[in-house]
């Protein structure tokens, strides 16, 4: 019953989306104003229908209705309830439905909040969104139907991949999707602007919160993914430059460039064609991220051979979305005439450099991911492009760009005077040099990389503090007055400073984790100890633990630092009988300065358990830095929330008061 209802809801959503994308264009042509109301009604209808379909699927998972194919394939009656629910998106069909839910969700929220936006622009945006929704609901219905039935039904299901039975991973895809899909809104706005042949500060202001929201979600999603890799996979790292990770990085880089150039467009009415181009690229890169890399081309050619219709469908969507948008761009981009001008030394120029480098970095990751396929296509050669390549190219490229972080925010718009700025930043430069020299002297390996990373992080942090000090006139005026200035400082500025500060912290953490890590490995029997510098790790015992749906072998460790007792921790190796898979749970004893990270392997007769111990200095700050960056994004969104586009009247009044 519920399955059939969900099926119908999904079909109806598809048809509403299809109908809307056609009717809106017709309506705009005839000029009938009813089309504006219709566009909003349709957007809300799509959201409600897909939302209800998603609720149906969730219900089916909750009650373990194995007459539904995806439930039978991906759930099990004895699985913990919470993982039954997260199992909804732990498979291809369900995750696609989640994707569609997010897509229509964004459209629905846009419909809800669209009051201040020029009607033609917003209506065109809905038309483009509906086209995307129609394409993806069609993909769902005709190639990956989540409500397909399994008849006769099996008595029990096939379980969910045990790797997905983890709270971090359960929240990782929705966050990532919220980011990916968020760029559909900016994409649709960009297409609408091109059709209108006009984009100005109004457009940028409308789009900015959406761009920031998508970017913030994507940041959090990538962060959750990295922490999942760090804590669950047990290979002792958080970023491996594998295609799946690269796929999420590409839209993030494009999105980062976009939110920066959007600022220029809003403030100065220039770089318009470029900003629109970035908006057009971020969403397709997200699509590449979810589909090409994860399921169709790179990971598994086999999968493509078994489901050619899915691959062809997705490629067709991509070709139409990107090809259509870029053709429109070629045709209309010249209508976007910039009006603002700026000199070579100005905030605009520094953001141009920012965009240039980020675009190059994005292209670098793109080609790094797809170049092997390209080489195989044109010749018989095969290549591998792995972490060492990115370390040698991406890191210096982006590292150099980050030098600009504190400078950029302090440069004046339009035309800046470099002299006073350099004098202001002198303390930061001195701090940077000092930090680099100290790091170089103290480290016992990877000295140069460590020193450069530390110097960069200190430069960013101190530079930002100087920026903040000058904005608040801290110590130049009474403290109370500075605090008042802090309150009056727009949240957008706070967001920028906070996010950039997070970047500094992240740089420091990455430096610590990659340049100064140490590791040791050894066979251990209960009672054995392992010494790493000042640390002593004792294996106290190994025990077998039977849980609901897995069996674990748990190694109990005790960590000492010199004389100090740092407490005990447990590393596990889990076996999931139903899927016949094993996974690892690393044990992490964290502190602000370093993580002690332990994994335990399969025992070897007579020699004991293989134990790997890593010491990761500053690993904790990876998550803090990432969280601060996301917080910066959230603050900037809140800026727009406070002075909503609706509140035109008070704004006008204030202007008059000022006069």
């Amino acid at each position: 019953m519920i399955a059939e209802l969900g099926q119908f809801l999904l079909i109806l959503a598809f048809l509403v989306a299809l109908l809307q994308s056609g009717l809106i264009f017709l309506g705009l042509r005839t000029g009938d104003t009813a089309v504006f109301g219709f566009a909003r009604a349709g957007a809300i209808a799509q959201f409600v229908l897909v939302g209800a379909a998603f609720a149906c699927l969730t219900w089916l998972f909750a009650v373990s209705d194995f007459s539904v194919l995806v439930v039978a394939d991906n759930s099990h009656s004895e699985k913990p309830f919470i993982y039954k629910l997260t199992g909804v998106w732990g498979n291809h069909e369900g995750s696609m439905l989640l994707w569609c839910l997010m897509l229509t969700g964004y459209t629905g929220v846009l419909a809800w909040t669209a009051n201040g936006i020029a009607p033609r622009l917003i209506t065109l945006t809905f038309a483009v969104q509906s086209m995307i929704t129609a394409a993806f609901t069609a993909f769902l219905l005709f190639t990956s139907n989540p409500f397909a039935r399994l008849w006769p039904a099996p008595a029990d299901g096939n379980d969910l991949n045990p790797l997905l039975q983890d709270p971090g991973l359960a929240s990782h895809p929705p966050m990532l999707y919220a980011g990916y899909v968020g760029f559909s809104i900016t994409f649709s706005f960009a297409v609408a602007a091109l059709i209108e042949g006009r984009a100005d500060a109004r457009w940028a202001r409308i789009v900015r919160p959406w761009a920031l929201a998508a970017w913030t979600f994507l940041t959090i999603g990538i962060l959750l993914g990295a922490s999942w890799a760090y804590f669950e996979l047990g290979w002792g790292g958080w970023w491996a430059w594998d295609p799946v990770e690269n796929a999420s990085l590409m839209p993030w880089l494009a999105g980062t460039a976009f939110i920066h150039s959007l600022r220029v467009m809003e403030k100065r009415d220039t770089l318009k064609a470029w900003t629109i181009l970035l908006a057009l690229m971020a969403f397709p890169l997200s699509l590449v991220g979810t589909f090409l890399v994860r399921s169709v081309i790179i990971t598994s050619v086999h999968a493509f051979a078994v489901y050619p219709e899915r691959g062809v469908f997705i490629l067709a969507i991509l070709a139409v979305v990107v090809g259509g948008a870029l053709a429109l761009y070629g045709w209309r981009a010249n209508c976007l005439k910039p009006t603002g001008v700026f000199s070579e030394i100005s905030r605009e120029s520094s953001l141009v450099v920012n965009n240039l480098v980020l675009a190059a970095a994005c292209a670098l990751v793109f080609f790094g991911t797809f170049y092997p396929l390209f080489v195989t296509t044109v010749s018989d050669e095969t290549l591998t492009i792995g972490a060492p390549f990115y370390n040698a190219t991406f890191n210096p490229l982006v590292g150099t760009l980050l030098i600009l972080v504190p400078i950029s925010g302090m440069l004046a718009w339009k035309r800046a005077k470099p002299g006073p700025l350099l004098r202001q930043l002198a303390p930061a430069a001195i701090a940077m040099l000092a930090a680099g020299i100290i790091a170089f002297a103290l480290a016992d390996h990877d000295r140069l990389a460590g020193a450069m990373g530390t110097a960069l992080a200190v430069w960013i942090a101190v530079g930002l503090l100087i920026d903040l000090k000058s904005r608040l006139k801290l110590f130049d005026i009474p403290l109370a007055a500075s605090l008042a200035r802090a309150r009056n400082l727009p949240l957008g500025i706070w967001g920028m400073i906070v996010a950039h500060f997070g970047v500094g912290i992240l740089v420091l953490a990455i430096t610590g984790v990659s340049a100064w890590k140490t590791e040791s490995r050894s066979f251990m029997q209960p009672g054995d100890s392992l010494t790493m510098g000042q640390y002593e790790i004792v294996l106290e015992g190994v025990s077998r633990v039977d849980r609901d749906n897995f069996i674990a072998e748990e190694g109990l460790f005790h960590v000492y630092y010199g004389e100090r007792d740092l407490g005990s921790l447990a590393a596990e190796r889990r076996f999931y009988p139903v899927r016949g898979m094993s996974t690892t749970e690393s044990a992490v004893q964290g502190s602000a300065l370093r993580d002690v990270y332990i994994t335990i392997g399969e025992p070897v007769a007579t020699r004991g358990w293989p134990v790997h111990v890593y010491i990761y200095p500053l690993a904790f700050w990876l998550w803090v830095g990432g969280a601060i960056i996301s917080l910066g994004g959230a603050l900037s969104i809140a800026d727009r929330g406070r002075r909503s586009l609706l509140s035109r009247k008070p704004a006008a009044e204030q202007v008059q008061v000022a006069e």
Partner: protein
Amino acid sequence: MIWILIALIASLTLVLLVAPFLRRTQEKRADGLGAFASQLEELNRDRAMEMISADEARTAEAEIKRRWLNASDQGDVENEETISRSFRTIGVTVCAAAVMAAVVIYLQIGNAHLIGAQPPQMAEVPEDVQGVLNELEALSASLIENPQNPEGWYVLGQAYMAMGRYGEAAIAFNNVIDQVEPTAGLFSSLGRAYVFMENGILGPPAREAFIRALELDPADVMARFFLAEARLQDGDEARAIQEWQALMESLPEGSEARVMVETRLEILETENR
């Protein structure tokens, strides 16, 4: 019941979509020009906080005002109320048609006839399902203790197959094969367990099992059926069809196996269409 709900959902959606076409006047619409006012406001605040010099502020103000002016020139056309009869008629008609089309598509891909039906397999399971499950658990536990029990493993394998726990079924069948002189049927069951486990993909273990089954009994239906499927997955469709047809002709009219092969060929045909 389902049809009532479908009718309800369909009509509610229709009402929501059609409502804007029936309304005569539209709500007051914005032109978004407030953005410029609020930019001026920001500018004044920056000036008040001495974030920018008076000179910069002056030129910035001039620029914002010019953009405001340009934007307001372009925006005038939009606020006029226009009504197009034909568009409204088309709109209402197309909306209604779309909702009807949803019902039609549902009839095509939905399974309304399954509502309320008992899944056939459920009926075969005795009422006390839990009891059976417990028995199986006990059986598997005792087999782990005393693995030399081919009959026990075989029963367990069959049960796991029925329950959809294919990985465990494969383990059980492997144990039987290790303990008795294997037969084609055993290998063929093992092969099916592997195929089902891989969701229909014929990996090396499944292929091996079916090949062994054929070695023992060249006429084994399941092995021949799935090895033909393997051909198809290797991309040799012509050969697969040929093998299926040969298999089909060797089977008695109307038998379950023959129907299975026929269905498979039909599916292939529809996929190719």
